């Protein structure tokens, strides 16, 4: 199910402003990759280019290639909508659809696309996705209640269930725990560890301990100053980044000297 991602010489622009410059990175399937770096360094922007979500913002465009198992996401004839059903995303703040029940939230990707699905298949998919998101036991008695009635951590796991219900190959997570309390954060981190066996997981985080705990490889992004583009400074196995980085800037950042 999971696919590899290869990014070649990617530049991201907002209008004429170069936000992220010259990123090349290879992300292995069945792994967790963490993006770390100070605020505004372009790591979230870069993450969003991996499923073309940046195009939602007016004026955003990219140069370069993002290959999903060799297929260019930005090739001619590629529909961003299709890309997003292969590369799912979980956001900073949990955002279940307020008009839908828990069950409908999980089925949202299927139902909103008007795909027909039998009731038994739907029940099966709901159970599978919620189990995959470690939420099934907590909500199986109240699947018809609104998703917004859950706690923050449960809502975020519901969003993950919703993302895996469309069976993507890659799951992108944009600071998925920054709006959650420590206990919910722990639950999500455990879940990320389990998701690794089926999906390629890419996570943006501000929390270096979190990156150290959950990721196999870590990429450090930085900017030279305000108005300058963000760049990928160093990309290596997580233990290397945190104990023996090659770059001075990385060491300064992970040792807490700035950022």
């Amino acid at each position: 199910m999971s696919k590899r991602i290869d990014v070649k010489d990617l530049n991201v622009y907002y209008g004429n402003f170069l936000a992220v410059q010259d990123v090349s990175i290879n992300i292995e399937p069945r792994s967790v990759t963490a993006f770390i770096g100070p605020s505004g360094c372009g790591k979230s922007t870069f993450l969003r280019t991996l499923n073309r979500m940046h195009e939602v913002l007016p004026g955003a465009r990219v140069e370069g290639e993002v290959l999903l198992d060799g297929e260019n996401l930005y090739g001619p004839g590629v529909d961003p909508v299709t890309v997003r059903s292969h590369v799912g995303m979980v956001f900073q703040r949990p955002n279940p659809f307020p008009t839908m029940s828990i069950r409908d939230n999980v089925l949202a990707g299927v139902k909103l696309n008007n795909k027909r699905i039998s009731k038994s298949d739907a029940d099966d998919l709901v159970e599978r996705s919620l189990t995959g998101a470690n939420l099934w036991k907590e909500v199986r008695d109240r699947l018809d209640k609104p998703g917004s009635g859950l706690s923050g951590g449960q809502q975020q796991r519901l969003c993950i269930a919703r993302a895996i219900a469309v069976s993507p190959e890659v799951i992108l997570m944009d600071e998925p725990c920054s709006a959650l309390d420590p206990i919910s954060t722990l639950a999500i981190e455990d879940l990320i560890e389990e998701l690794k066996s089926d999906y390629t997981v890419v996570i943006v985080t501000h929390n270096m301990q979190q990156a150290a705990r959950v990721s196999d490889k870590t990429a450090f992004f930085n900017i030279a100053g305000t108005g300058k583009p963000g760049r990928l400074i160093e990309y290596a196995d997580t233990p290397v980044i945190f104990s023996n980085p090659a770059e001075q800037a990385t060491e300064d950042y992970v040792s807490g000297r700035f950022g």
Partner: protein
Amino acid sequence: MLDTTSALSRPGSLLTKNRLPRYTPWIVLAAALILGAALSALIGFSVTSFAIFTAVLFVLGGTVVTWIVEGRRHAVDRLATNLVCGAFLLALLPLVSVIFTVLVRGLPGLSPDFLLTSMGGMTGAVDNATTDNGTAVLGGAYHGIVGTLLITFWATVISVPVGLLAAVYLVEYSRGGTLSRAITFFVDVMTGIPSIVAGLFAAAFFGLVFGPGTRTGFVAAVALSVLMIPVVVRSTEEMLKIVPNELREASYALGVRKWRTILKVVVPTAISGIASGVTLAIARVIGETAPLLVTAGFVNTINFNAFAGWMSTLPTFIYRQLMSPTSPTNTDPSTQRAWAAALILIVMVMLLNLGARLIARIFAPRTSR
């Protein structure tokens, strides 16, 4: 300086010096009431003059007393407070008076017969006989109720899709270009079009296309939708804007197309607000009179066809009954019918307003934890 602490602990000094006690306004009010009554009695007592004298004396007295004890700044503050509260009470006067009048004059004329008969066959002679014999007033507003409902229905059918889609364009598709700014600007301008001008437009348009003097319920519906569309656009726009962007992104991230996202995520999230906005827009046009006078005409008989023939509505019914009573010599039956129709109309509008609030509350997304 030495005795500061003792001064603070003693009541009635430093911090409370030169302050009037809390009950002062009541004393001033009592004095104003007595003096007001006296002055009013001098020129021949009436409730109106009593109220005016009392109000003026209360405001003046409060200011003067405060000035003497607390100084100029506090006197100005007291004056402003009294004037602001007075403005509010003054604004309530017409509201209370209108509702009281409509109830008192409208209730006697309200009966099942009034609701279910038209003015067909009603002549001045009938009203004269009614007055002479002292029997119940005949005739009713059934044709007006039918017309009002039909015309409002067609106006809604035209306005809601156009207004809704235009608002979707403004919020979801436009990216601040010239077209969207032009639409926003002219929608604002449209909210200011005098209703009679909207009526003239519809009359002129249909007159040019279908021949002069074309007056049907549908022409009136077109006139009303000119007034209704901007209201629908504005309220829908506001409601779509407050749908969090995160929901759109969540939907896009699931690989859902934009138009499906709008129809299945954005609009359902905002539907309670949109529905209540539409209801308020209906409430606004249902009481319109001027555009109906020039587009639908008025008749005494029932017309169920909005596309042919003149059509009466409740507002025009009220207007005609007041301006040209059925019997010029005995106007009381007509006046009674007008007020009964006004009561029905107000009840309709109030129900719509109430309905809008209920819709907003009942269909609001349940976000409670």
